[in-house]
């Protein structure tokens, strides 16, 4: 089993812009002393030794940020000394070496010395102090401006996906080590905190300065604090079937200062248990709002917390995880996350249980015999070639299984044979073929995480593998390599700030445009102009795929265009679309209306009627459900309610709903 990376403990940690710990190895006492004095004046902590063995002795006791060594030393060359340090000193990995020489100044020698030792620079003596100073500052600036520390903390978090056992303390420590993460990492963090049965507050900060928080009591979520507290409580009660619209109206007319839930329970219109279920759903909606497309900073404060009811326990969290993975996490983000494991075997972990609730969720059910494929040691690349398996379901199902710890990736790196490499290169080619350079790097961000930019090309080349023999595959391989080259050249020619600000500006503009287009499509849909609506919605999917209302409207449009000859297949597609509607978009009038259309298309007229009624109750001015209800009435073919074939949610709702008086 791999152990988690431990951050080396620096005996003297210097965190200022200046103030590195530097060891100078120079047998010229005068030059050594001058360097020491000059660097000390710059605010560094400098040690000077004249012999290699003194340096070795010192380095076994202390960790240095930089080692400057002369090439020609007594008993040993500076090059051999660096090699020896690398072999013998366990904590040297954070140290950067700089070579200096007044004799070996030949360029070929310098290049060879740098490549042999991995030193970051070679200074020809005599040199101006600024040369060294600028060099150190340059390296420091890169590490200070890069997100390598954060990326590495995040990478460590996902290394759990390769570990059979991780202790609760290790999990907590991993979460504590995080600072900046993707909004899409939050479901995993919630799941880990739930598994560790921990109590405390997870504070979340967005780039825009918004502070949110999730409170855990022994692993159960007992509170969610978000900026937008609106949660459509009334709509939730109606949609869930716990409350009739007229009952809600009655309660809303009661102007006493008690809370709406209290009023409903006291009036025997709702059971306390049903209300708790709605309050949990309210927390789900709020949690959904924390999962954003963008960076967030997180901080977990471990503390005693009061037990509060209702709460989201592990089972319910599984259900919500499915909702979030289905509706919030985009496919391209998952593709990027799992790229590094795409050729590694998927294994069942010791936590695998055939009857686990995750295996009963919709994405898992869409993939026939997935548990068997996992038992056979399939990898992601292989799963993607199975007929009937679609990429969305594969990535989302695997993500869910990994979040719940039911599967892990084999830590053995698989060396690809010719046919596997062909498959691998072809898949990469397809993934990046029509992508912009920035999107190519975005796709590989997990692989490049924690690597210095100068190592990116090497890292990408390692991932694609050596040039294949087969001429057709070689053509694809070259095309992929060219894409990498081009993406990196463009990246290096632009500053991060420029790219970020352009991206942000572009993002908000696209978002506004997308919202306007979704509204426009709704108008077309209400006029039954489905083809026109779909044209607009397909455009929205391209410019801003996470636009609110996109999925519901797309499902509406698709339902309007169902071809009777392809009905079964098309309804499956629509089902997938509806599964991906985020929880916070399910409580307006459109969602139950579209659900009604879907149920009607499946021939389930009883539930279709209910859905249309819910939609109409939420927004009486919405004409479309009224029209559908009239059509159902005129068809007069509504069968009697059959509890054995009804939606389970509606059956349960019927039990909990109380009648007045």
């Amino acid at each position, binding site marked *: 089993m791999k152990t988690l990376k431990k951050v080396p403990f620096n*005996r003297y*940690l210097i*965190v*200022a812009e200046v103030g590195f710990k530097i060891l100078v190895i120079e047998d010229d006492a005068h030059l050594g002393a001058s360097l020491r004095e000059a660097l000390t004046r710059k*605010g560094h902590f400098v040690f000077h030794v004249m012999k290699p063995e003194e340096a070795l002795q010192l380095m076994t006791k202390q960790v240095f940020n930089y080692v400057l060594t002369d090439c020609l030393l007594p008993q040993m060359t500076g090059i051999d000394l660096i090699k020896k340090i690398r072999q013998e000193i366990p904590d040297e990995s954070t140290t950067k070496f700089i070579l200096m020489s007044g004799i070996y100044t030949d360029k070929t020698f310098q290049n060879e010395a740098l490549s042999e030792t991995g030193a970051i620079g070679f200074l020809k003596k005599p040199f101006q102090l600024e040369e060294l100073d600028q060099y150190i500052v340059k390296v420091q600036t890169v590490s200070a401006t890069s997100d390598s520390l954060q990326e590495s903390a995040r990478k460590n978090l996902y290394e759990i996906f390769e570990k059979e056992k991780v202790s609760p303390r290790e999990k907590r420590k991993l979460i*504590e080590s995080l600072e900046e993460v993707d909004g899409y990492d939050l479901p995993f963090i919630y799941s880990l905190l739930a598994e560790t049965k921990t109590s405390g507050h997870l504070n979340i900060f967005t780039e825009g300065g918004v502070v*949110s928080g999730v409170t855990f009591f022994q692993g159960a979520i007992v509170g969610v604090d978000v900026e937008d507290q609106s949660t459509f409580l009334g709509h939730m009660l109606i949609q869930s079937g716990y409350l009739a619209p007229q009952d809600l109206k009655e309660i809303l007319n009661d102007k006493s200062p008690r809370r709406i839930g209290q009023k409903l329970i006291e009036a025997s219109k709702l059971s306390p248990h049903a209300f708790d279920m709605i309050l949990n759903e309210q927390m789900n909606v709020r949690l959904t709002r924390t999962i954003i497309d963008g960076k967030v900073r997180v901080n977990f404060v471990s503390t005693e917390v*009061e037990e509060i009811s209702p709460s989201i326990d592990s089972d319910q969290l599984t259900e919500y995880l499915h909702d979030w993975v289905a509706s919030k996490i985009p496919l391209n983000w998952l593709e990027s996350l799992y790229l590094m494991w795409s050729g590694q075997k998927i294994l069942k972990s010791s936590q695998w249980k055939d009857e686990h609730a995750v295996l009963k969720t919709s994405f898992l059910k869409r993939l026939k015999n997935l548990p068997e494929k996992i038992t056979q040691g399939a990898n992601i690349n292989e799963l993607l070639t199975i007929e009937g398996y679609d990429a969305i379901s594969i990535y989302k199902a695997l993500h869910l299984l990994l979040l719940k710890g039911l599967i892990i990736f084999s830590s053995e790196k698989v060396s690809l044979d010719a046919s596997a490499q062909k498959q691998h290169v072809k898949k990469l080619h397809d993934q990046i073929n029509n992508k912009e350079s920035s999107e190519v790097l975005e796709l590989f961000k997990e692989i490049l995480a924690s690597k210095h930019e100068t190592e990116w090309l090497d890292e990408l080349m390692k991932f694609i593998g050596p040039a294949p023999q087969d001429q057709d595959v070689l053509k694809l391989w070259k095309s992929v390599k060219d894409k990498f080259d081009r993406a990196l050249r463009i990246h290096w020619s632009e500053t991060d700030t420029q790219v970020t600000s352009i991206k942000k500006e572009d993002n908000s503009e696209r978002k506004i445009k997308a919202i306007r287009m979704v509204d426009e499509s709704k108008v077309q849909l209400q006029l039954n102009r489905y083809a026109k609506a779909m044209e607009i919605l397909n455009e929205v999917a391209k410019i801003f795929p996470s636009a609110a209302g996109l999925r519901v409207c797309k499902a509406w449009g698709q339902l309007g265009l169902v071809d009777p000859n392809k009905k079964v297949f098309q309804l499956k597609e629509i089902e997938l679309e509806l599964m991906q509607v985020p929880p916070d978009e399910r409580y307006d009038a459109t969602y139950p209306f579209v659900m009604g259309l879907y149920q009607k298309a499946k021939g389930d007229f009883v539930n279709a009627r209910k859905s249309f009624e819910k939609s109409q109750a939420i927004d009486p001015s919405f004409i479309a459900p009224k029209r559908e209800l009239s059509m159902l009435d005129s068809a007069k073919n509504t069968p009697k309610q059959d509890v054995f074939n009804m939606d389970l949610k509606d059956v349960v709702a019927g039990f909990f709903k109380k009648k007045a008086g």
Partner: protein
Amino acid sequence: MSKFQCKVDRQGPKLTLQLGGIIDEDADFAPLAINGAHEVKIDLDAIKSINSCGIREWIKWIGANSSAKVIYAKCPKVIVDQMNMVDGFLPAFAQVESFYVPYYNEDSGAEKNILFRYGVEFKEGQVQPPSEVKDETGNTMEMDIIESKYFKFIKSKV
């Protein structure tokens, strides 16, 4: 569960606030007006936790100060984390006099908080931890934090 508590000690232009318990939505900062004082020392030793509502309240309260010199003393880890992460939690006019650093021994599982004081264990841009920290049974303890993350606030200010 310890609710938010505050003890106020005013001596001429110098104000000392001893805060304790939980900083959350119930923490009331309204009576703790710091304007008018020349120097305000906030002793945070007894703070147990802070949630998102508490963070918002804190920023609102501390940000309303216009003239006093503010000193944070005995900051526990929960406060240091916020200073490092949340803009406005440690505003430009505030200084840190001392803060706790958690230590841990992997073999014995012992945990201990060591107070780092300005001018002794840290100063502008530098941290010089004690040469050795031992637990009750004499085992050497290591810092139980990620240094580059935990000491970040010292980079820009003390």
